[in-house]
Structure formats: structure tokens, C-alpha cells
């Protein structure tokens, strides 16, 4: 054969082999990465603020009436003598007394069953407008759209709970000792090795509480003379950890890469405030999925910036591990980046694994350092055996180690459910925030009174939802936040959508200016069903 043909053949071969590696990802479903945060309509913002103003005015009136004795004071009394400095400032409790208590029945609702796809809510009755509650004894079966149960592992039957029960019999419930003393059990090492493998990291360490994982370990990584660049919407545990570390904190606008870059440049050029010494190190703290917004962090761009400016990256994957990505490995999997590019992987076991606790993963040197200096490892009781075994068996299922396809099915079911649910909500005319693939689905309701109305009406229709307002969100951005689970069947989602449709009509929740407002029956069912079953 002529040399030209040979070269062509060689080129074709290499070209096709490139295609082959590309195809490994090509077979997996393509993600339409689309994030939307439709702007609050002006009239809605005005009405919301007006609503809060009326409530505050009423609150002041009621406080005045209580002060002059016309109305009974229902708050608890300080058992100490009057000349003690008051424990709470009056204004601190104004919100609690006059706004929160009115709708207190929609928060802290107790349940009496496993927090799975369906849940039993304990009915509470109040005779005095939510100041005190009594249980009626009735249990309301509802579809659970509020618990963090993304992969459906919150089950009281099945291999995971069996393993947990066996471990209680073998190890008891607690070790009563710290990791540094006698609390270091073999099953913890097994969990850590498995988790490190799952995340494709060198090593991992696990803790008993997700909140404490952030709050007690960030101080071991950074201290005075370091800079923390933290996203404005970061979880409070990250903020607490950053504050306790003593480092300087500079927030950057949510998911705004330009702002992050300008902050990085400014930090390196100007150095520390006052002394102008260069910063010892810079740590960027972001979350995988933001639980109130449903947005994903822009990981490839952050990694590019981090490499360009030699900063370190701390990623909190509390809501994304297990729930995002084609193999459930979080945003690292979703964006297909190299896990080694992220210096500190952090996450929790509460959401996708149906257990409790948190972990940090990364290079071995990092994890060794944390093992020695972590407040949690030195002073806290180590993890309980059943909690560890639940995670180990959930991980085995997700990774396919149990010999079944259950794990991959759950991941795909979740992705399916999320797409199905979101698309229909958006097509009905609700303002839905966040990324199309995030299992956290916030739907805006804006006005304070609607927070209670939506929750109560949805509960009447058999759906337990979570509605949040100020101060968890901005004043004008109250929302109802759905958490989709792989345990939800199509029937459950349809029921929830129908309920949302009715409640949306009753309470006027269709605010979108970009999409037409449609009732659920007006939607083209065949189209959604086809997508769901594909």
C-alpha cells in the first residue's frame, strides 16, 4: 500500500479511537445545563413589602395592647427577679411573637413514621392561635416532598436497615470514646476507605455530624493571615467554621465568576488589610448544590480561576453527593472534572445516604492533618455503628457492589423524577429557581401570608411541603422548596403536581412572565410521559 494510504489509515484509526473515548460519555444522557432565576415581578415585590408592613403594624398594635394589659401576654416569663438584665431584647422577639407565631403550625411539624417517600404527619390542634399545641392523635398520610431523601434510602426495611440492626447487635449503639482514644473502630476505617474510593480521592475521614464537620474542621485548615472567599449564599455551618478559624472572610456574589476573579486579583495585589503583607493562602469555599436556590456551582470556571491564582478550593457537596451526576458522584461527576483539582471535598451522609454525619476527602496529607488537629476527632464521641453501616450498605448499593443494578436505577429514577417535575411546574407558569437537574426545586411564592396558605392547602391535599420565608431567605423571596426523591413514583409526582396546580390557582402563585400560565389538565401529558419513560 502506498505511504499515503498507510498514513490515512493510521490517522483514521487514531481518530476513531478518540471517538471511542468520547463515546464513553456520549452514551450517557446529555445534561441540558440550564439555570434560571426569573426576576421578581415588581408588583409582587411591592405587595410583599406591603404585606410585611401591615403585619408589623399589627404587631406593634398587639404589643401595645399587651403592654397596657388589654391583651394577655402569652409568652413565657423569666423566673429570675425583675432587676436582672432582660435575657432577650424586645425587638429580637418581635418577629417571633407577632409574625412567626401566627404561622407556627407550618414549621416543625412532627412525623410518626420513617421519613421516606410517604410520611405520616402528626396532626396538631391549637386553641390559642398557635401559642400552644395539642396532638389530636390523628396521623395524616402524605407524600413527603420536604425531607432530604434524594436516593430514597430512608427506608425501614431492606438491606441497609438489616445491616444497621446487625451492627447494633455486634457493636452496641455508641463507643463512648473519641477517635483519638478508644473510639477508632474498624468499621469507621472501612467506611472511610469506601468513601474515598467512591469519590476517587486519596483518603477520607468521617464525622458524626455534618454541621460540625464544617464548623470544626475549617479552623484546622485556615487561620489568621489567610483569606477565605466564600459564596454569599453559603450554608451557615461554613460561615461559622470560617468565623471560628480567625481568617479574613470576603464574600463574593452568588455564582458570579467575574466577582470572584476580581476579588482574587484584589486580594493578591493588595495583600492583607493594614499591614499589606501577602496572604498566606487563599481558600475558596463553595457548595455543590445550594439548598435554597437549587443552583449548581460553576465548577469548571472555579477550577480554572483557582489554578490561575493558586488558591485552594473547598467544596461542600451536602446536597449534591449521590443526587447529581450520572453515577451519583456529585458535581465533580456532573461537570466531569478531575477530582484532584478540588483540594477539599466535603459532604454529608444525611441527604442521599439516609443516615447522619459528614466527611472530608482529599489528599492523604490533608486527611492526616485533619485526623490530628480536628476538634471533632479529639473531643467528640466517634460515630455510632448502625449509622456507619447504613452508609456502608447504601454506598455499596450505589456503587453496584451488592451485585444488583439498584444503585444506578435509583440515580436514574431521581434524574427522571426531577426533570418530569420541574418541566411541568415551569410549563404551568410558576417561577422555579435553579438548575434543571438539581433535585431541590424552589417555587417562589413571595408574599408572607401565602407561606402558610400553601403549606396548609398542600397538606389538606396530602402533600407535605416545606415553605420558607424570612430570615432563611430574603424578605421578598419566600418560597416553597420541593425535595424530589428517587422513592417518588410517577403517581406520587402527578398527585403532587395536581395539588400544586389547585393550590397555585387558589392562592395565585403563577407569577412567571416568561411562560404562559396553564392549568395541569391543559398540559400535553403524552409529551411528559414519553420523556419520563425514556
Amino acid at each position, binding site marked *: 500500500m502506498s505511504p499515503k494510504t498507510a498514513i490515512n489509515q493510521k490517522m483514521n484509526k487514531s481518530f476513531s479511537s478518540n471517538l471511542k473515548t468520547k463515546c464513553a460519555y456520549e452514551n450517557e444522557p446529555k445534561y441540558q445545563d440550564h439555570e434560571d432565576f426569573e426576576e421578581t415581578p415588581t408588583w409582587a415585590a411591592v405587595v410583599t413589602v406591603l404585606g410585611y408592613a401591615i403585619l408589623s403594624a399589627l404587631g406593634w398594635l398587639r404589643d401595645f395592647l399587651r403592654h397596657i394589659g388589654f391583651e394577655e401576654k402569652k409568652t413565657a416569663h423569666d423566673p429570675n427577679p425583675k432587676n436582672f438584665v432582660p435575657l432577650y431584647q424586645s425587638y429580637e422577639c418581635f418577629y417571633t411573637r407577632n409574625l412567626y407565631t401566627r404561622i407556627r403550625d407550618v414549621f416543625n*411539624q412532627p412525623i410518626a413514621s420513617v421519613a421516606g417517600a410517604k410520611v405520616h404527619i402528626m396532626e396538631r390542634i391549637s386553641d390559642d392561635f398557635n401559642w400552644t399545641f395539642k396532638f389530636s392523635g390523628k396521623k395524616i398520610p402524605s407524600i413527603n416532598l420536604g425531607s432530604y431523601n434524594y436516593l430514597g434510602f430512608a427506608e425501614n426495611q431492606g438491606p441497609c436497615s438489616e445491616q444497621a440492626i446487625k451492627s447494633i447487635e455486634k457493636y452496641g449503639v455508641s463507643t463512648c470514646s473519641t477517635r483519638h482514644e478508644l473510639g477508632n473502630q474498624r468499621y469507621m476505617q472501612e467506611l472511610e476507605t469506601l468513601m474515598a474510593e467512591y469519590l476517587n480521592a486519596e483518603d477520607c475521614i468521617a464525622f458524626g455530624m*455534618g454541621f460540625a464537620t464544617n464548623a470544626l474542621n475549617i479552623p484546622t485548615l485556615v487561620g489568621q493571615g489567610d483569606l477565605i472567599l466564600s459564596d454569599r449564599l453559603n450554608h451557615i455551618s461554613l460561615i461559622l467554621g470560617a468565623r471560628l478559624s480567625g481568617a479574613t472572610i470576603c464574600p463574593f456574589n452568588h455564582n458570579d465568576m467575574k466577582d470572584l476573579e476580581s476579588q482574587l486579583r484584589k486580594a493578591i495585589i493588595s495583600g492583607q488589610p493594614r499591614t499589606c503583607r501577602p496572604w498566606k493562602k487563599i481558600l475558596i469555599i463553595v457548595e455543590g448544590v445550594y439548598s435554597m436556590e437549587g443552583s449548581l456551582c460553576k465548577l469548571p470556571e472555579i477550577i480554572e480561576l483557582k489554578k490561575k491564582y493558586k488558591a485552594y478550593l473547598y467544596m461542600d457537596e451536602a446536597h449534591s453527593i449521590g443526587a447529581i451526576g450520572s453515577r451519583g458522584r456529585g458535581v465533580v461527576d456532573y461537570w466531569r472534572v478531575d477530582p484532584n483539582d478540588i483540594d477539599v471535598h466535603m459532604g454529608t451522609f444525611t441527604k442521599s445516604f439516609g443516615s447522619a454525619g459528614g466527611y472530608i476527602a482529599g489528599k492523604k496529607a490533608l486527611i492526616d492533618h485533619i485526623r490530628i488537629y480536628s476538634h471533632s476527632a479529639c473531643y467528640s*464521641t466517634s460515630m455510632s455503628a448502625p449509622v456507619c453501616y447504613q452508609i456502608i450498605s447504601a454506598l455499596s448499593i450505589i456503587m453496584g457492589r451488592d451485585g444488583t443494578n439498584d444503585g444506578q436505577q435509583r440515580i436514574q429514577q431521581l434524574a427522571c423524577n426531577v426533570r418530569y417535575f420541574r418541566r411541568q411546574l415551569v410549563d404551568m407558569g410558576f417561577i422555579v429557581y435553579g438548575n434543571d437537574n438539581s433535585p431541590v426545586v424552589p417555587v417562589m411564592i413571595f408574599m408572607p401570608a401565602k407561606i402558610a396558605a400553601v403549606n396548609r392547602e398542600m397538606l389538606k391535599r396530602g402533600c407535605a411541603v416545606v415553605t420558607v420565608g424570612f430570615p432563611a431567605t430574603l424578605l421578598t423571596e419566600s418560597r416553597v422548596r420541593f425535595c424530589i426523591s428517587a422513592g417518588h413514583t410517577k403517581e406520587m409526582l402527578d398527585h403532587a403536581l395536581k395539588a400544586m396546580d389547585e393550590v397555585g390557582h387558589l392562592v395565585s402563585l403563577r407569577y412567571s412572565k416568561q411562560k404562559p400560565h396553564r392549568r395541569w389538565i391543559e398540559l400535553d401529558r403524552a409529551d411528559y410521559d414519553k420523556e419520563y419513560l425514556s
Partner: protein
Amino acid sequence: MGSPVNRDDIARLATDFYSLLESFKQTPFYHLIFEIFLILTVLWLVCFRKPRPIAKKLTEKEKQELIDEWQPEPLVPPVDTNHPALNVRVLDGIVGKTIEIDGRKSLNFATFNFLNFVGNQRIADKAIQAVQKYGVGSCGPRGFYGTIDIHLELEERLARFFNFEEGIIYSYGFSTIASIIPAYSKRNDILFVDEGIHYAIQKGVEASRSTVKWFRHNDINDLERLLAEQDKHDKKNPKKASTIRRFLIIEGLYMNYGDICPLPRMVELKYKYKYRIFMDESVSFGTIGQTGRGVTEYHNVDRQKIDLISSTLEYSVGSIGGFAVGSSFVIDHQRLSAQGYCFSASLPPLLAAAAIEALNIMDEENSGLFETLMDKSKRLHKKLLDIKGYRVLGEDISPLKHLSLANSLNTIGRLEYIVEFAQTRGITITIARYLNDEHHLPEPSIRLILNVEMTDEELEFLCTVLQEALVKVTA
């Protein structure tokens, strides 16, 4: 030739000068003042003002150079692979009254298993029932369907145990007191804190950002001195003083020292100087007092006078988590303001079930658990004192004692030798581990913890082994 010119010049000068003087007389007064002022200003500018450096704006090239040159420190400093925390014993089995290490059974005097609830069958059964009903995790914070009926039951039981109005539970022992203190004490408030408190409480104090006044460990006179000083300071500005809250943060039984706080006097001072008492009874709950109700029972102090008692479910109760009890006025605030409560997942129901069953056992009338524990602690204390050569820190009735060597002999190396020797003889003890950034790092010591099920012979055996170890280490 010169003189006539000179005379003319002088005359001209004189005329000029005279006309200048005349013009001065004619100018308005304000004009003169203004002119003098201007002259003085110019003089000042020239002589006295320091030249302000002109702010140099960096060029893009310089900025890029700075960015390129900057080298961060490594994320973590190099680690010593021989650090004890990286070479911890790996266990595989129940850590109850006895532990199996490397195939050999040894008596456990090292874990906080005061009432021997670890491995208790009743508790295990209840925990298993809870898993069969609720699964393992609670999948949400308390505000969002993470409140399970078993949590409410546990809170009510704890409140009833202490005879308080309300209780609140947390999912992690460390976070309990670390979340409680910042919920009440803010930037302008004052905390009077004992120097010997546990690290978790130190973190709570730090997170609160309040003014902290440390007093020497268990030294009531030092506390009075600080209170009197603050009182004097307050009298100078009573209006400001009436907005500053004060708190006394103490432990019932100190984990780092094993001694009990002088509660009656502290309660007296509370009403004199008007502060609130937050007491952490992690170690004393379930160990001190006739019925295990802690230091208030031991000192016979009216519990209602303590504003808040916090404790943990991780020691005598043998579960995981923490709790606080007090009046509704105090506790209810935490449901919206304590970060570790509002923003964290709730306690797994199986751990709550285990805690409830443990409380049931503690509440049983004829258990005699606590009296036995205090009795054995007293006997152990006496036996330890009989081994001359050890310093024994702690109250005699405290089941938690700190053992150290006398004075200059007391090094971590020697204590580790004692621990290793004891392990070879079948006794597991441990050195109390601390992080270096403790506020007041205690001296190295062995933390001995008494399990209520230990028999006299076993205590005797412990003392024998300690005696032998002492001989070997001082040889």
C-alpha cells in the same frame, strides 16, 4: 558720581516706602487681616506641612507580576507520621466493661461508659425496634419534617427527669453547648468563665464574640473579685450596664480535673451580682447525686435557680447527642436561634430510642446505680491515694479521675509507658488527649473512668497494676 545717584535712589525708596505705609493706612481692616492670614498660610505650607506621598497607581504589568510572584503556603503543614493520633488502636467489637484488643480481653477504664449501658440488651432492643420503624436517619432538620415523635418524647422525659419545664435535644454532644452559648450571649455581653472548662465550651464562648472574663479554676474568690470589679465599672455607667447581659459558664463536674464546682456560693452570688448561670453537666449527669440528677442534687441546691443545664447523651446515657433543660422562657429561644439545632439534621431516631430506654433504666426505683457508683468511686479514690507516688485529681465521689506523676516526673512519655504496661497486664487506660490551642492546657494525665459494674477485685487489680507500673517507670 555715586552719591547724588544714591541720594536720589534713597529718596525715591523713602518716598515709595512712605506711600506704601500710607496705602496700608488706607486699606480696609478686613483686607489687611486677610492678607496676613494668607501669608501665614503660605508660611505654614512651606515650613510645617509634611509632604503627602502621591498614591502610586500600579500598572497592569506590575499587577500581573505581583499575581505571578505570589506563592501560597501549602494547604496543610507537613505531618508527623508518628503522631499518636495517626497510630491509634483499631478496635473491632463492643467497647463495654471489657474490650478485646489484639485478641486479648482487658478491663476498660478508659471510655465514658459510667453506667455500663454500652452493649446493654434492653437498649439494643429498643434501638433495633426504632430502626424497624423509622429507618436510620431522620433526613432533615427539626424545622422541615425532621421532628419525629420520639424526639418529642425524649425531650419531655429529660425535662421531667430534671423537673424542669422544657428540654431540647441536639444531634451532637460537642455542638450542644457550642451552639447554646452564642444563642444567648452576643457581642456586648459578659461571660464569666472558669478556666478549666472543656474545649467544646471554649468554642461556644469563642463563637459568641462576647467579652470573656476567665477566673481561676474553681476559685470562688477569684470569681468574686472579677464580679466586684465589674460591679464597680457598672456603677460608673449604669445606663450602659443595664443593657449588658452577664452569664456564668461552669461545669458541674469538670472533665479536665474531676472536681465539682462550688455551686451554692455561685448561686448566692448570682442574686447579688445579677448574672445567669449556664451549667454544663456532661460528666455529672447520671453519675453524681443520689438519683443521678447531678451537682444540684449533690449540693442540695434548688435546681430552678440554675438558668440552663446542658449535658450530653454520649457519656452515662450511652447514646449520641446532647441536650439542654431549663425553663420554657430560656429553652424555647434555642428553637429559632441555636445554629446547631436549626441548621442541622436531627438526631437519628434509633439513638433517641436508646436514650429513652437508658433514662428508663436510670429512673427505676430500686436500681441503686448511682449510690453504687459514688461508693465505688470513693473506694477507688482511697485505694489510689494508698499507692504513694501518684497525684490523684478529682473528688472522691467522682467516677472520673486524673492520675499523674509527682512534679517533674510527669511527662507524656512516662505516662504512655504506664498505659502500655497496663495494657500488657489486661487493663486499658488512656491519656487524656487535648489539642494545643486549649485556653488553659491541663497538665498531662491519665484519665481514669470508673464503670459501675466493676467489682472490688477488679479495682484492686487496677491498683496493683498501677503500682507495678509506677515502680517500673520511676526506676
